């Protein structure tokens, strides 16, 4: 660790070290950071650029291209509602509207296109846990029972 370096930057260096020798390792590194902190701190960009011999613009370009990488933490319980066609056929748009209207403070509602649960829609993910056949009442119950401290972002 370079003296005076922030803990985030130091963590970025150790993530790089963990993937040393892997081809094209930027995505696995970003996944590690996102899984640990729940977002990718913009402060890691210069560190990753230096370590991987890329320009800052390239690293930033990758982070901003992919929906999974957030540049700030998502507050509270994260609810991802599938809005793809198969879930729409079972009322996903109404469920999405319900979520945006009624799930208030402490809940981040996001749309996602397909969770691969297309025969048991509408599908929703609450803090990374997949649920099927979700109506408004079941969504409210899932959110109410979600453990705010056990946020499972993608552990990959």
């Amino acid at each position, binding site marked *: 660790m370079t003296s005076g370096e922030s803990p985030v930057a130091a963590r970025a260096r150790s993530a790089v070290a963990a993937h040393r020798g892997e*081809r094209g390792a930027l995505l696995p590194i970003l996944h590690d950071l996102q899984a640990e902190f729940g977002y990718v701190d913009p402060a890691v960009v210069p560190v990753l650029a230096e370590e991987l011999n890329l320009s800052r613009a390239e690293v930033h370009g*990758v982070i901003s291209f992919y929906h999974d990488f957030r540049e700030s933490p998502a507050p509270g319980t994260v609810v991802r509602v599938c809005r793809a066609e198969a879930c729409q056929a*079972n009322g996903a748009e109404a469920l999405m509207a319900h979520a945006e209207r009624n799930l208030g403070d402490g809940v981040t509602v996001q749309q*996602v296109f397909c969770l*691969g649960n297309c025969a048991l829609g509408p599908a929703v993910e609450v803090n990374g846990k997949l649920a099927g056949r979700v109506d408004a009442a079941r969504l409210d119950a899932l959110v109410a029972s979600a453990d705010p401290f056990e946020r499972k972002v993608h552990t990959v």
Partner: protein
Amino acid sequence: MTTQTIVYVPRDAAARSVGADEVAERIAAAGGDGVRVVRTGSRGLLWLEPMVEVATDRGRVAYGPVAAHEVDGLVAAGMLDGADTDHSLGLTEDIPFLRDQRRITFRRVGVVDPLSAADYERHGGIAGLRKALAMTPEQVVEEVTASGLRGRGGAGFPAGIKWKTVLGATADVKFVCCNADEGDSGTFADRMLMEGDPFTLIEGMAIAAHAVGATEGYVYVRSEYPDAIATLRQAIDAAYAHGWLGESVLGSDLSFDLHVRVGAGAYICGEETSMLESLEGKRGEVRSKPPIPALAGLFGRPTVVNNVLTLGSVPMILAEGAAEFSGFGVGRSRGTQVFQLGGNVARGGIVEAPFGITLGELVNGYGGGTRTGRPVRAVQVGGPLGAYLPVDRFDLPMDYEEFAAAGAMVGHGGVVVFDDTVDMAAMARFAMEFCAEESCGKCTPCRVGAVRGRETIDKIRAGIDAEANLELLEDLCELMTDGSLCAMGGLTPMPVRSAVQHFGEDFHRSPVPLPTPTFGPNGSAS
């Protein structure tokens, strides 16, 4: 020790999404030492999940759907002895939905413990790899070509021809990459194979490596599939331990290392060149072709890119011979396809059947119509870039060429069902919205065309110059079809045009007000 009753409960993500874990726990608690719970993949009868199977002298007996709070009652009623209860489905193999299928690629899914190498070999696994390693690469390529296997990821390109190109290329290193991005709505077969029988995919990739001279492989799995990722990683470790991967596979000259890489929520990364960019750690922007990936793919080296189901069909072709596989199917669509029934369907799940089965047999026969019980009005086949078809096209056989002739596509075999409450103008709008959202942004017809397309459909739905705007929409579709670099922009017109063609009345309904624009953080309207 008294013999234990074996009870099978799926660990598939779909089954877990409706409570399979809790059911497995309750059964283990209720049965105590007398039962052993084995977590399998799902049989693909998803409307019956969580489905529990009990091993008996007669074979496996099924119960479903079983809720955790019902377990104690079912156990009291004799479920663990295979007795008849109000949840009984009879012998699993006799359930018509399953009995009438022809399971080849999915033969072990729901049957075996996905992480048991012993189970895998006992059920015919690794036989294909053994056969392949006793053959020359040329012979393996010839066998795959003779089987008529075509790419299951969407485009239907003959797998053997692609492999032959890679085999013929010389390079310091060659790659086999499996496309497990499965972004199409209505498709989940890749996921279910990876979760339910991952060794089949691994074996298929090792065979491909031998056939083309590759030493390194990657499975690119979308991040929305955490269970598949975890299962595949464990299976790869087990495969190394059994000498199915790594140096001198099964004692042969083949060395093959396999890695899992995880996507990051971008539909376009299912397009093969975008996937390769992503594997290289870059933005998932589509490359222009040529060069084709078979000659200059991952890091510029010759690369096989195939879908999960394509590679998953290879072990059987080698084990049982090309003729056995090509004996199924119609025309130039050989073998079976793993169809997926989703959306508003009464019996959703996996239907593996030979090509040639009609759309109606799938939707009404296997699927049993809609879940809501209302009439079927439309089905979308082949994902978000596939056509919407009306009920009067239910005679269409599932066949690449027949579908193309009907202005539609088989794609990855997903069939999404809608009842008569669907607004097809809204679905056409969604197709444009999806393209605008997921475009990689490299070419203008797609990036700008999709946004203009969405606005134009908004105007049509609002009753503003409907006829003129329908003409404008058609012009936009033509521009996107002809001018886009890849099939994202190039095929988005397919769902849009098919909606206009088959469900034109939905574009002339009572006006829907124009959506109020919302403004993003940088002031851009979205």
